[in-house]
Structure formats: structure tokens, C-alpha cells
């Protein structure tokens, strides 16, 4: 007769109520850790903001059309960064054309075709990882040696700089592409192969298209790193004073970081302001490129 009420009597009573009053996140150890995390964030962010604000204040007098349209000059009032902007564009474009196809091809080979148990392939893989961590100036020296070997006299040419920067970012692109390829589920590849597609067709029609967003993001980030480099180009003897537009891959050039480097070394205050303004310009371009990378990642990212 009483069983109807039985289920209520037998209701589960949790041993520890949810409202236990002891918040696990509020104990001393986690709290200290949290505070430390916040502190490091504040320090890092503070330094960055100070830096940006300083250069903006320094350079504010020089944000004029002249910066974009004029050639460097002996007086800060007449000088502009036009050849540096064009030079950067030439070098980065050449680098992109040289590196991206090569990097993707290398990554596809390593990821899709190479036998991963083969010692030679494993060694290559390890080396690619290590190369990504080599200081950029070393690549400058490498390119220098290579050009000398070829007997190139004037090493300050667009293709020379692009060569150095390509060597620098090739490992980065290879790694990014491999990550993107690895993120494509094996099931997709197996599905394609099980229908009688070849390995080549599977890569070309399934794996690569799915990996494009990841590859694009990685490549843009790598190129933006190359854009900010000065050291390897200086080793190649990049001109610091160029008063002509680069006209081809064999033409002489300067780039934004080198121009900045040059102007900072001048005694006149006006040049320092020009350098600051150019830095802001470079920074803006980098932010735009990173923004584009993030956009591509979010917009085209596949969710499996």
C-alpha cells in the first residue's frame, strides 16, 4: 500500500551537497598561481603597449603622404620610405613564390607519401623541426655563401634577399602545412582510397583542399615573419640608401626594417621620427597580415 510513496522515501541523497561552500578555485595554491599568471600577462602587455605608444608618439609628426611617396634624402624633411616599401613588397612576393609551393610539396611528400618508418625520412623530419629554430642571420650567411659559390658579384639583389628569407621560412611553412594535413582525418583519406582513388588523387582532391585554410594561415604568418627580418638581408649587404624603385628580381633594393635600421642610426632627431613612423607602418602591415590569417582560419576552418 505504501509503495507509492516509496520512491520518494528512497530518493538519492548525495553524500556531499553541491553547495559545499568550499570553492576549489579559492584555495591559496590555485589563487597564487592565478595571480602570477595575471602578473605575467600585465608585464608582457604593459611592455607592448608602452612600446607601441612610444613609437606612435615619436612618429606622429611624420605620418604624411611623403613617407609613402618620397625617396630617402639627406634631410629628414624631404625623405620618404617609398623604395623600402616597394622593396619589401618585391622581396616578400618573390619569397612567397619561391617558398610556398616548395614547402607545401615537401610537406605533402613527408606527410602523405614517405614511409615514416624509414630512417632517412625520420632524419629529414627531425632536421626540419630543428631548422625552424635556427637564428635568421645564419640563413643570411648561408645565402651569401651560396651566391658566392654561383659567382654572383652583387649580392644585394631582390632574388638574393628572397633566397635568404625563403631558407628562413621554408621549415616554418613545411611544419605548418604538415600540421594542417595531419588535421585532416584519416577517415577521409581511407574513404577516398576505398573507392579506388589513387594516393595522388586522394591528396589532390581531398586532403589538400581540406588543409588549405591551415596552409594559408601558416604561410601568411611565416611571410609576416620574413617581412620583419633585417639581419639576413644586412649580411647580404642590402643597401641602406636607395633612391630608385626596384624594377625586377635582379634589381637592388632596400626593405622597411633596413630603412628603419638606417634612419635610427642617424644623428638628426627628424630621422628618428621617420624611423618611428615607418615602424608604425610596418607594424600596421604585420597586424593586417595576422588579421587575415586569423580570418582565414576562422572562416574556412573545417569542423570534423
Amino acid at each position, binding site marked *: *500500500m505504501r*509503495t*507509492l*510513496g516509496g520512491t*520518494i522515501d528512497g530518493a538519492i541523497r548525495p553524500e556531499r551537497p553541491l553547495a559545499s561552500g568550499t570553492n576549489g578555485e579559492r584555495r591559496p595554491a590555485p589563487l597564487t598561481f592565478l595571480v602570477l599568471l595575471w602578473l605575467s600577462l600585465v608585464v608582457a602587455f604593459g611592455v607592448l603597449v608602452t612600446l607601441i605608444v612610444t613609437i606612435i608618439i615619436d612618429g606622429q609628426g611624420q605620418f604624411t603622404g611623403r613617407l609613402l611617396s618620397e625617396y630617402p634624402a639627406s634631410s629628414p624633411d624631404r625623405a620618404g620610405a617609398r623604395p623600402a616599401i616597394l622593396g619589401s613588397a618585391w622581396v616578400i612576393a618573390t619569397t612567397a613564390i619561391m617558398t610556398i609551393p616548395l614547402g607545401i610539396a615537401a610537406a605533402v611528400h613527408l606527410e602523405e607519401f614517405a614511409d615514416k618508418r624509414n630512417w632517412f625520412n625520420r632524419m629529414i623530419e627531425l632536421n626540419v623541426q630543428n631548422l625552424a629554430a635556427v637564428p635568421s642571420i645564419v640563413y643570411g650567411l648561408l645565402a651569401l655563401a651560396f651566391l658566392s659559390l654561383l659567382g654572383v658579384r652583387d649580392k644585394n639583389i631582390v632574388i638574393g634577399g628572397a633566397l635568404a628569407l625563403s631558407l628562413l621560412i621554408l621549415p616554418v611553412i613545411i611544419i605548418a602545412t604538415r600540421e594542417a594535413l595531419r588535421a585532416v582525418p584519416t577517415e577521409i583519406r581511407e574513404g577516398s582510397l576505398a573507392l579506388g582513388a589513387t594516393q595522388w588523387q586522394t591528396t589532390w582532391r581531398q586532403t589538400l583542399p581540406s588543409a588549405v585554410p591551415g596552409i594559408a594561415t601558416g604561410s601568411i604568418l611565416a611571410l609576416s615573419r620574413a617581412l620583419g627580418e633585417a639581419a639576413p638581408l644586412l649580411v647580404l649587404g642590402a643597401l641602406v640608401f636607395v633612391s630608385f624603385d626596384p624594377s625586377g628580381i635582379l634589381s637592388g633594393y632596400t626593405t622597411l626594417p633596413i630603412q628603419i635600421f638606417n634612419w635610427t642610426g642617424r644623428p638628426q632627431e627628424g630621422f628618428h621620427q621617420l624611423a618611428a613612423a615607418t615602424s608604425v607602418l610596418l607594424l600596421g602591415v604585420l597586424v593586417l597580415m595576422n588579421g587575415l590569417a586569423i580570418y582565414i582560419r576562422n572562416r574556412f576552418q573545417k569542423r570534423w
Partner: protein
Amino acid sequence: MNLTHSTMRGSVKIVAVGNLDLIARGRPAEFRHRGLTLATRPTAMAALLEVGRDPDSIVLVPTNLNDMPLTEFVDILHSLAHVPVIAGIVPGCSAQAVSELFDHGISSTVALPTSPGRLADAVRASRTPEQTEELVIEVGNLTLDDARHRVTWFEKEVTLAPKNFEILRFMLVAHPRVIPLQELMKHVGDNPQNRAVRARVAIGRLRAAFSDAEPRHDTPIETVHRIGYRLRL
């Protein structure tokens, strides 16, 4: 189990909410003849007080109860008074509302206004198994309580789906005989297809249930190779 109205001893008090005319069809004497004493109360509150006074009664609630949300009243009756509740279905009541009532634990339903016979049936349906005939099979450490649909093994409760429960009961009744697969196959439901596999799977489920309940003992079901199964107790 097989109670008929003539075997119903004593009188059951039914506390009904609402107007007698709307609830009952027939004279009080006819209800008494069926062993039912009807007490009507105008409101849910009054009915609750009446139940408090006589905790062995059964409550009849019309679905058009108007002084209180119906399901809430049912819950109160169950939790405070522990009495069975019969829902009196008023024309126009939706099927969904009825199923909701069953979710709230009512024991049966009857259409209103009700005849004495109908109400007696509803009352019988609301009786809990404790009042019915009991069948408890106990062999060794295994107990099967048919009425409560409970199996215990070494004092641990074994959770079984109805079909597997039937098969275990059959095996217990047959104990200690070996039950050939063909015989077991007759007890796996009406569907004639794939009886063998269903019998085997049921045995597998029984074994799993036993080892879930008490992992320290080997399951009591023994395979007799190429013949069938037997309980080893």
C-alpha cells in the same frame, strides 16, 4: 492476484473530490455492495483533511479539479498521505494529460461519472502487489521474487530486463535440470525469427547482470556444451 468483487473483504473508503452527482452513477448502497464507501468532499483541501483522518483510504481525483493544479495535488497526496490515487477522467481530458498523471504516480483511472463496478475494478488495479498472491523462488544464494520483479544473488540485487527475468524464472523452475537450447528458445518472446541467438544473448545478458551484481562469484549459469544451459546453485 485473482481477486473478484465477491472476495473483497471489508470496505474500502474512497475519498472523492467534487460533487457526488458528477462522480458516481448509482446509489451509495450499490457501491457499498461492491465493498466501496464513497465520501465526497467539495475541495481538494477538504479531501486532504479527510485522508489525514483515515490514512487507509484511496483518493479519487477528477481531472477537472479546479481549486488546485492537478499534478501538484497528486504529488501532495503521495508524499504526505501515501495513499493510492485514482484519476477520474472527465470527458474532454487529453490523453497527454492522463499520461502525465501516470508519470506522477497515479495507480489507475476511471471514467466519470463511474458505475460501482467500474470503480471497483479501478480500486483493484490500484492495489499494490503486497496484497496479491506472492511467489518467491529461493535456491541456494539466488532469490527470485516474482511479484516484486526482483532477483537477489548473495544478497546483491541483480538488475534484469523483463525478458531476461522471464528466462531466469523459467530456468529456476527447471533447476537442477539442464535446459536444452531448443527449450530455452521457446521462452524468448513471440517473434519466431532468430530465437537461438536471442536465447544465447539473453543468457549472455543474465551472466553480465550476475557478474555486475556480484563480481566475486562466478555466474551461476553453466554452459553444457552442445546441449544447453543449467543453473549451478
